[in-house]
């Protein structure tokens, strides 16, 4: 169920240049049903900035009622978020949307998780859940440059992890697709989150495979009421459009017209 929770900041640290890992504690955590869901965060009690900010859930610790989010402090809202200190309280709405289907890969099968930049975080909880049920995960993570890369170690613990940086400062020089080409197609499913051009390249490269992509759109309500976040769909979908916030953010490959 979607709830509004005043969650406590239980951790906040900069894990890469302007990239923050924040831990939030509260009963909302108990409501999370799948990796790839997101929360809608009010960064200030003031009316400026006005709107909530959508941020993916990067990992969950049900025992501690704690979840982790990872975000880039870029504009006004996320910068304010990065100034919150441990112990402060943040108004969080969630969990929102439908995440990655863990069920679509069976134990023993291999899944490829492809993330780009700030699209990497939700793949972490996904990988935790997949590996926990016996799926072999291969991670391909793309970043602009080394100083903006994060979570290589965390992912490596769960499975093979390849890094690509556009400027070659870390891992393969180039894009995630360059790594994909090397790895081949010995896998059952792919899951991906990142910028639209990346999602497009991934779904084109893996056209024959079962895959799931997570999308972004500017949002108003975050719960499906305002029609801000719609995307046109391909003929694969019965409805001519989907809402990223409530129908997504994760869709089967090929559904969203990009």
């Amino acid at each position: 169920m979607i709830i509004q929770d005043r969650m406590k900041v239980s951790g906040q640290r900069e894990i890469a240049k302007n990239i923050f890992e924040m831990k939030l504690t509260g009963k909302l955590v108990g409501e999370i049903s799948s990796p790839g869901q997101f929360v809608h965060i009010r960064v200030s009690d003031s009316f400026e900035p006005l709107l909530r900010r959508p941020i993916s859930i990067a990992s969950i610790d049900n025992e501690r009622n704690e979840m982790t989010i990872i975000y880039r402090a870029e504009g006004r809202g996320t910068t304010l978020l990065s100034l919150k200190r441990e112990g402060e309280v943040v108004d969080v709405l969630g969990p929102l949307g439908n995440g990655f289907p863990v069920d679509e890969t069976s134990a023993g099968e291999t899944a490829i998780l492809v993330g780009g930049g700030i699209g990497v975080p939700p793949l972490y909880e996904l990988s935790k859940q997949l590996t926990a049920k016996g799926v072999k995960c291969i991670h391909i993570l793309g970043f602009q440059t080394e100083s903006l890369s994060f979570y290589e170690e965390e992912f490596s613990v769960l499975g093979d992890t390849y890094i690509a940086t556009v400027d070659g400062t870390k891992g393969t020089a180039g894009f995630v697709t360059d790594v994909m080409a090397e790895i081949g197609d010995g896998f059952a499913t792919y899951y991906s989150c990142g910028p639209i051009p990346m999602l497009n390249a991934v779904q084109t490269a893996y056209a024959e495979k079962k895959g799931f992509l997570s999308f972004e759109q500017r949002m108003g309500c975050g719960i499906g009421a305002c029609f801000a976040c719609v995307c046109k769909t391909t003929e694969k979908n019965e409805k001519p459009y989907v809402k990223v916030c409530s129908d997504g953010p994760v869709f089967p490959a090929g559904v969203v017209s990009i």
Partner: protein
Amino acid sequence: MNRLSMELPGLQLKNPIMPASGCFGFGKEYGALYDLSKLGAIMIKATTLETRFGNPTPRVAETASGMLNAIGLQNPGLQSVMENELPWLEQFDVPIIANVAGTETADYVEVAKTISTAPNVKALELNISCPNVKCGGITFGTDPQQAHDLTAAVKEVSEVPVYVKLSPNVTDIKEIAKAVEAAGADGITMINTLVGMRLDQKTGRPIIANITGGLSGPAVKPVAIKMVYEVSQVVTIPIIGMGGVSETADVIDFLSAGASAVAVGTANFVDPFICPKIIEELPVKLDELGVDHISELVGRSHRL
């Protein structure tokens, strides 16, 4: 005694708080969060004759204490609203105000005629002020004669009272208000959004795909209050006020300015529970102000 009850043409309101059109869909999403019967009424998303996909995205952009939207009246169309949305809302004890939109008079008339027969639709809200569609909408709302004629045409076919939603993007909103009153409007809802724009810093291009969008939220409240204050002094039909209502104090302001009820738009996005929160706080505010019934506040800004 219910200290919050209000009686308006067609509407028996338990309280004067209702979500504004376009900010609450057809209720389903918020219905998953709280009991919609708590609300005074619900203004549902604009309904047009045919299904509309609306504008390309991005459709929203944030501004200082406000936001721009250019949804473009996306909705499933009259038939689907009649068959799927309105019947679903019947489970709640809450009057529905159906927001009616179109590109020409005939569209409005046809939607109004049909939708006003739905058992829970207790009033129509004629949307002559949507800034986000190319034709229709706002053009009716900026010319008194056109506003008059459209209102009269809809009045003729509607089974329920008709409220007309005014645009603030005019030199003299009083003229439009008087014109729709003369045409038989039962009430006025105001204000729709101000037209605005935001540019991308890097490229300089508009962020909203539709180029311009409608400005809403706390930023526009002073403009809305001023217009309600003015219009309520030149018409005798009641006003449902809106524009930036975000907390209980704002409701008091709109009533004081001359509104008989208040709609909450953008604030639903900031806090999805804002409507029930305000409804709960209102009696406390009345006590603070030493007022027995909320109706005593209506128009007190005019009285010296």
